[in-house]
């Protein structure tokens, strides 16, 4: 679900060792030394490679938004679309770079107490907010206080901390509410820093519409329905950044219009293109396609808490049969122009502990029927399914295809497509039918991967979960408390196995996200939850 990718704040990307685990395990070790802030995460594929265009100074970038934004501060942004606007204006204590490593941001360095519960951050000097306020420890404490307000959409990332104490102007300690191996990332990268005086003056609602942060760009104008204009913040603490002078966000709800806009160059950066857009833009002049495996898994969920109790789907063989019955490759080929990967579990390739030897269920209707017969349902059965309309690209068609394919092994599916808001509403109340189609995204860090599994399978404890498996509960608890990196990774591997063998879902696919930029855009590096940072991006010409 789009909104949940930002639950713990926007972080991380590619597969990476979790440096934090090393810190958490060792006592009183200093955090990593900041690499030269002038390097913007350039790597082998970086834009400074010989022959590639260099990032020029100045210029304006126009970005198309796929939905109409309603709030643009990071802890109230409803989805990653708004989040991308919001995070250009803010910083957090640490920064996860393109390689997935932790770098200092508003915090120069940090240490952890022996019991791993209290983190002490040394803050960077000379950082100011867009309105001139000074960033200091008091601002951190203030942010925690106002962020914890349940009226904020993502207040729960703030309740991870039980206390924030100002030691002096440049030092602040944050104490975890419970032992949590993932605390540094969740807090350090998840908390945007707010200006106390300004926020106190305008309040939550007003701030969500006109936020002020320490980030590389500041808000100049928001004309509803028309555009959001950000301009370079001259006193930004990263020397030499941002490269751009201006960023303009234009909401374009209609997907084909978005594609047309980047084609004509009226827009420089477009996300969420449809697979057919990729086909038509493929050969177009002046347009670069950006495709990457999105960390989102689409599935059909089973239910053993409410409507699925007593249904044949409680039997693992039935669920395996249903997994065998779906021709994932054909669905991906027909509906996504082949851009996607069949899914084997609720983990994806970038996740820690992902076991590449576990392959997705192949399309095998014979095995499916055999398993059904073994479970005693050789005549099939009837079951109801629902899925959200206009939430995901072509997902309604996917559900229709699934219903038809299940029909071919004798399972009659009654499909109900409902408006997405109502759909998630019902899901939160566990009132959806025994089958429902949905998806969940995660960033490539353990915290996020954990959140995804817990969110979908936490049983009664998790709002949107319709399935409870004691073995999974065990394993999840183990993740929380295992402090050693390698051990934790093997817990995730066990999770992978369990999720595959006793599937609480019919696993479908991980889509390839399709985006496009005009040729003049340099150094655009999206992360695989569709989030991006613009301070290192430039335009040439």
């Amino acid at each position: 679900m789009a909104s949940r990718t930002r639950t713990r704040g926007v972080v991380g990307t590619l597969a990476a060792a979790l440096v934090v685990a090393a810190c958490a395990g060792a006592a009183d070790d200093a955090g990593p030394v900041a690499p030269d802030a002038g390097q913007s995460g350039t790597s082998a594929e970086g834009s400074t490679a010989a022959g590639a265009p260099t990032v020029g100074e100045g210029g304006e970038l126009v970005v198309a938004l796929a939905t109409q934004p309603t709030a643009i501060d990071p802890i109230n942004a409803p989805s990653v679309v708004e989040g991308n606007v919001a995070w250009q204006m803010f910083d957090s204590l640490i920064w996860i770079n393109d390689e997935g490593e932790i770098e200092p941001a508003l915090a120069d360095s940090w240490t952890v107490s022996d019991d791993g519960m209290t983190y002490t951050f040394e803050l960077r000097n000379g950082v100011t907010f867009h309105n001139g306020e000074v960033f200091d420890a008091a601002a951190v404490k203030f942010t925690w206080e106002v962020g914890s307000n349940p009226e904020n959409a993502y207040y729960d990332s703030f309740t991870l901390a039980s206390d924030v104490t100002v030691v002096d102007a440049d030092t602040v300690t944050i104490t975890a509410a419970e032992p949590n191996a993932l605390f540094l990332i969740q807090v350090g990268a998840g908390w945007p820093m707010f200006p106390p005086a300004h926020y106190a003056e305008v309040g939550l609602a007003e701030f969500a519409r006109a936020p002020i942060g320490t980030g590389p760009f500041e808000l100049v104008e928001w004309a509803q329905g028309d555009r959001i204009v950000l301009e370079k913040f001259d006193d930004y603490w990263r020397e030499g950044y941002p490269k751009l002078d201006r960023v303009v966000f234009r909401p374009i709800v209609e997907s084909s219009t978005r594609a047309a806009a980047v084609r004509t160059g009226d827009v420089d950066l477009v996300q969420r293109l449809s697979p057919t857009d990729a086909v038509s833009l493929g050969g177009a002049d002046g347009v670069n396609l950006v495709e990457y495996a999105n960390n989102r898994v689409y599935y059909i969920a089973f239910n053993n808490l409410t409507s699925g109790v007593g249904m044949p789907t409680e039997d693992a063989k039935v669920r395996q049969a249903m997994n065998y019955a779906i021709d994932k490759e054909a669905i991906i080929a027909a509906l996504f122009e082949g851009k996607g990967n069949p899914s084997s579990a609720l983990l994806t390739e970038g996740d820690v502990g992902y076991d590449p030897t576990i392959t997705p269920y192949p399309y095998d209707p014979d095995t499916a029927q055999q398993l059904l017969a073994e479970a005693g349902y050789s005549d099939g059965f009837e079951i109801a399914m629902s899925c959200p309309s206009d939430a995901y690209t072509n997902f309604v068609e996917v559900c229709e295809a699934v219903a038809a394919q299940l029909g071919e092994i004798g399972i009659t599916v009654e499909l109900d497509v409902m408006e997405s808001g109502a759909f998630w509403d019902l899901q939160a109340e566990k009132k959806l039918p025994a089958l429902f189609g949905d998806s969940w995204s995660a960033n490539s860090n353990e915290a996020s991967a954990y959140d995804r599994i817990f969110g979908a399978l936490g049983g009664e404890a998790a709002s949107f979960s319709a399935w409870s498996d004691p073995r999974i509960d065990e394993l999840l608890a183990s993740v929380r408390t295992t402090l050693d990196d390698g051990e934790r990774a093997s817990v995730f591997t066990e999770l992978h196995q369990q999720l595959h063998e006793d599937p609480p879902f019919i696993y479908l696919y991980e889509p390839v996200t399709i985006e496009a930029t005009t040729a003049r855009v340099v150094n655009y590096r999206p992360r695989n939850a569709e989030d991006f940072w613009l301070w290192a991006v430039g335009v040439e010409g």
Partner: protein
Amino acid sequence: MCRYILGRLAQAALMVMGLLVLVFVLVRLSGDPINLLAPRDATPEQIDEIRVAYGLDRPVIAQFGEFVVDAVQLDFGTSIRYKQPVREVALERMPATIELGVAALIIAVGLGIPLGVLAGMRAGSRTDGTVRGVALLGQTIPDFWLSLVLILVFAVNLQWFPPFGRDTFTVGGIAIPDESIVLPAVALALFPMAQLLRFTRSAVLEVAGEDYVRIARSKGMPRRVVYRRYVLKNAMIPLISVLSLQVGALISGSLYIENVFAWPGAGGLLAEAVSNRDIPLVQGLAFLGGLITIVFSVLADVLYTLADPRIRLGVAR
């Protein structure tokens, strides 16, 4: 005359009241409206607060009374999605829709009336047939479909116009939309143009058959002069009513067209509000839409009365 205007205004006020009843009833059609008016993730305490804010805990009559009082001040509560007062959100997006509507009307009038006159003057000829064919197409082509095609052909392929959005240039401190208004205005104008064309044509035919015109012709007055002096002027009066009818069509059309073209108007906002089931916003926009239509129809009636000398002079029609 004055009495007529006052009477018409009173009637309009009644209609506005009726509109409020309609909107009020519509939202309560499916049972407890709290599900429609409160955000989905609202806690039980928040729901209670909202219940009180909308007066849902009071008897229906009291609710309606409060609703009317609020509506007159254009207060329709808080938009679920934008978390801002509906009035603010709606009014901010109004001007863009008005711009687009005016542009579309100009195109519709500029094309529809002359073509209608042409067709009327050459009734029965091939020109007439062709023009009427065009009008027919204008009435049967779905406007959202046309918008997509227009973008494909004129924006992407020919690159004559931008494919989306409202861009402006400033003249004397005022922002005026540039060529970005053309494609959406054309798409929006199609249906009203067709209507105006057909109406003008039959008006011309009707007036042309009147005695005084035939007499003028038989007296030797050149055709063009006859048309200009008598036919057009007299056919134009009922045109006022037809124009006011098009306001409704323009409002309806803007829903789809603003959506496809990313034009930042209230029509696109309504389409979005409906998709998101943001009922307070839908309520407010529906009322505003109805209100505008009523205003224009009153205006048209008054103008009609002023323009038609038979009424003005008190001669029985």
